[in-house]
């Protein structure tokens, strides 16, 4: 052990790191001991589980797409455009990150619910968002969007806009430069942000149950299904949880291996 340390790390530090790692790992290990391995297959393929999985996948993909669509312009504006109250705008964008999701769900309800701020307008248009699959996507987008904005904005800042200036002196218009210089250069960050958004959307619980409810096949995503089965059928809950953990591990591995692999000078 000692031979491997770089020599600049105080000796008391690694033990604390190990405690931290155990805090994260212990619950996962504990859960693995409770898994009914023989029946995992059938537990995660029960009709209600399959419905929840399918819904989770659909809504998370939709929410992630929305995060890309909205997050890219937001990050670019925050990183590259000077405007009044910019610091405040950046703070507000990050609010969903620190807000308890259940509060976010309530806020969404007051904005888009039937009697919400925009509810009347939406009603006139024949749209009733609350307690629908759309509400699930909105809730997931709400909580995941800051991850995209944060990831992209810091990448854009670190990169600076020198390459864009070069492109401009080479005669490239702003739109062309954005598509052929800015986007390719922020690609690794976009991949990382997308993966993080998808993970956050997949795990969304509080805002979803508050704003969308828990209706099988319509708004009951995997986390909601787990919460429900926890009382009724703990084995099913554990099996589904295991599935989410595996997905999370794959995603984290993907997100933290890829961005560094393409170094930009």
């Amino acid at each position, binding site marked *: 052990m000692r031979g491997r340390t770089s020599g600049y790390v105080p000796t008391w530090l690694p033990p604390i790191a190990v405690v931290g790692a155990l805090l994260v790992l212990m619950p996962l290990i504990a859960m693995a001991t409770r898994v009914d391995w023989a029946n995992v297959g059938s537990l995660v393929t029960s009709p209600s589980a399959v419905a929840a999985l399918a819904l989770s996948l659909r809504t998370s993909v939709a929410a992630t797409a929305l995060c890309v669509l909205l997050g890219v312009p937001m990050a670019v504006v925050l990183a590259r455009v000077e405007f009044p109250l910019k610091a405040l705008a950046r703070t507000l964008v990050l609010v969903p990150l620190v807000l308890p999701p259940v509060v976010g769900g309530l806020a969404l309800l007051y904005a888009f619910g039937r009697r919400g701020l925009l509810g009347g307008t939406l009603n006139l248009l024949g749209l009733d968002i609350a307690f629908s699959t759309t509400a699930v996507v909105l809730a997931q987008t709400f909580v995941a969007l800051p991850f995209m904005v944060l990831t992209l904005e810091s990448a854009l800042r670190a990169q600076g806009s020198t390459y864009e200036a070069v492109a*401009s002196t080479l005669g490239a218009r702003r739109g062309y430069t954005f598509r052929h210089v800015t986007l390719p250069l922020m690609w690794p960050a976009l991949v990382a942000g997308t993966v993080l958004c998808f993970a956050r959307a997949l795990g969304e619980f509080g805002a979803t149950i508050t704003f969308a409810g828990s209706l099988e096949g319509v708004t009951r995503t995997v986390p909601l299904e787990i919460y429900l089965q926890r009382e009724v059928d703990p084995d099913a809950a554990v099996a589904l949880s295991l599935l989410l953990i595996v997905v999370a591990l794959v995603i984290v591995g993907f997100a933290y291996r890829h961005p560094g692999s393409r170094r930009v000078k």
Partner: protein
Amino acid sequence: MRLQASVTLEERGLDAAVSVKSGRTLALLGPNGSGKSSLLGAIAGVLRPDSGRTTLGDEELFDVSPGNSHWPRPDERLVGLLGQEPMLFPHLSALDNVAFPARARGVSRTEARREALEWLAAVDAESVAQSRPGALSGGQAQRVAIARALAAQPELLLLDEPLAALDVDAAVKIRAVLADVLRDRTAIFATHDVVDASMLADDIAVMHDGRIVESGPTRDVLTRPQHPFTARMAGRGLIRGVRTDAGLELPDGAVVRGMLADDAAVGTDALLTARPAAVELLSRHAGAPGGDSNTITAPVTNVETHAEVLRVWAGGLIADIDLDAARDTALARGDLVTLRVDPVGATIYSNAMSPTSD
């Protein structure tokens, strides 16, 4: 096309005007931090000045003044900017980097790549066409950057210390490429290196603390500097005085002889310049100079090592002494020394006083 530019930018202490005749290369010669990059940045459109106006031929590139703001984006100007770093797009091959300007103009990929290959051939870099920028050496990358700047077909090419980041070998090669590229092209070449300026530029504008102190044809500026700062950049001694029959009379009455470069009248303000090679340091403690020794006596103003010699400044002149001799004399600022000027190596010419700008 003729370029005329005047730019002020208070934040960088820049207040300069330059003009470049059509097809000629102007070297903007000055030390780092003298404002060269800011001036080029303003002309290219990447740095907005407080005020200024620039025209290229009949076209106004920009005009920023109180109550008037014509400030087009860089892509709306026909000005290319090549920097110290190649800044090749890391996600594109060398070929696609060079094809970029044509692609941005809407040229098809095939045609843009065909043109790009020609530009790469012009700078002798076809062999790296398929390489990623990360795999190129500094010299190769700068070749590709030159090809890319040319591919944009600018009416005016600005080069900001394009050789400064290269090692000596690569710099020699790229200098040759640039000599070829800059022939018959309207260009400004910013450099702190008097060698680059003398080899690549038709004209020189000397920049000091954000201002142009002197400008003119390269040979004139470097061999007959008007401003002490120019002389310093050119590595020449420069003393002021008054023209006499025999040479230059200094304020203290001493007369230094030299080659008369023009037939200005006796009594007019004049300058004498001499290379270090034409100046000999006689002794630390000056005795009274002999009648025909062509010497001046002055305190040492600066001493520094320069290649294998100790370079000594005194009374505006520069003398080199070899390091062995230097060890014995132990010169320091303020020591009084006597310098002998070789009359054949010294040039005397009129002091134009106000620097000419055209």
